[in-house]
């Protein structure tokens, strides 16, 4: 009887957790930087994200080596020399949606998001604006922000400084399905 009760409790707790969490595997993260020699542009479609509807907590996680570059050599350099993906395989953001969002009501919400972004093993606090769109069957989140490479101890040797911008624009688009 006791066992049954615990099982029931766990199952319902799990269900409750599931209901208040939006999980997205359809996350596109791209970054772009314009430099005199050549533009750097990479996209990953294999990031993951979650939103806790009750608390407003958000999380994004991405495997650094999932970024696809048009030039493969650039991709190799990104992983080997700048991101050091062997040592720091994952970048993540853990934060909170500051402004209230009613996830049960369709509409567009412009909100502020604040939290810690960890790239290259270095964590920094960021605050940015995000747009959250709630429709009948999905929640979509969009945001852009700028990352200064120096803030995350990503060093550019002087010899290639003209080739690589020191600030990159990051763009995120995540779709959280609310219906199965």
């Amino acid at each position, binding site marked *: 009887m006791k066992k049954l009760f615990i099982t029931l*409790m766990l199952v319902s707790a799990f269900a*409750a957790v599931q209901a208040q969490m939006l*999980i997205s595997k359809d996350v596109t993260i791209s970054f772009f930087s314009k430099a005199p020699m050549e533009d750097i542009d990479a996209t990953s479609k294999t990031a993951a994200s979650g939103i806790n509807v009750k608390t407003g907590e958000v999380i994004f996680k991405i495997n650094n080596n999932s970024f696809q570059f048009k*030039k493969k050599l650039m991709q190799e350099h990104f992983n080997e020399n700048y991101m050091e993906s062997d040592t720091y395989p994952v970048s993540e953001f853990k934060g909170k949606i500051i402004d209230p969002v009613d996830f049960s009501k369709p509409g567009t919400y412009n909100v502020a998001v604040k939290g810690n972004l960890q790239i290259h093993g270095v964590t920094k606090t960021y605050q940015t604006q995000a747009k959250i769109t709630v429709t009948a069957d999905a929640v979509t989140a969009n945001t852009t922000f700028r990352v200064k490479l120096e803030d995350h101890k990503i060093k550019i040797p002087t010899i290639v400084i003209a080739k690589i911008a020191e600030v990159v624009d990051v763009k995120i688009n995540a779709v959280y399905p609310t219906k199965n």
Partner: protein
Amino acid sequence: MGLGLSSTVFAQDSLEKALQMPATKSQVSATFKSPKLINIQTNETIFKNELDFRVDHRFGDIAGQSGGIKNFFGLDQSTDVRIGFEYGISDDLSVGIARAKGAGPATQLYEGNLKYRLLRQTGNEKMPLSVTLFGSSTISAVKASTDPTSAIAYQDFQDRIVYVVQAVIARKFSPDFSMLIMPSYVHRNFTVFGDQNDLFALSIGGRIKITKRMAFVADYTLPFRDDTKKAYLENLWGNKYYNTLGAGLEFETGGHIFHLNFTNATAIQESQFITDTNTSWTKGQYRWGFSIARRFSFDKKKDKAQ
């Protein structure tokens, strides 16, 4: 009551747990930074639609009989120079052409080569090694010698060709350390009198990162020449055969790779240094060498389409 409590406790860190990260891409990249180490090939090929332009240079002996201040420690001479282009047909297959001065009697070399990645080491250790095959044929355009015992007493065109087949077996042990072992087979259609046409060799090589952009590289090649033939040749020509050892520094600047090295091999091409290295470290017959490689990407069309 109990239910409410447990679900809030859950919610704190389960947001992170609920995230299922896709498996990381498992292929190990950048075992080496360049398709070539010092004397030998690495398992690396260039990417699709990339062109690798490479210049190799070997100076004269630093020390020993012909070295020293009178030829400015070898800088007054060049034993071999090679200019090569490589093009990536796919990420796994590249094709190359090269012109080399050539060391020894067979000079004016034209080389065509193919390099194919057979296996790639994976991150999950399912495949612990990378294997790349390399094949080249080199033609010497030198004027044939009339001395029938000479290495260049070519009778017809066929005699001028040397074939090399190699299998590079490599492993990246850590982000800072990679090693390779490579069996080679060299077939010379024509050799100096008394030498063998077929020769097997075994090479080892490695790379240790010193900083993010500088690495120590070294390679060693051991040819298996028939003992009686070797003794005969050394006796006849008065030249000993030596194994080759190269060591140097590799600099990477993003697009360019520079090598600064020392090696006892006078020749650059596989078709020559494996079979005909008559210069020894212990006699001061080692030299400065350098190489400069630049990669160009030809993926402009794709750039615009996306």
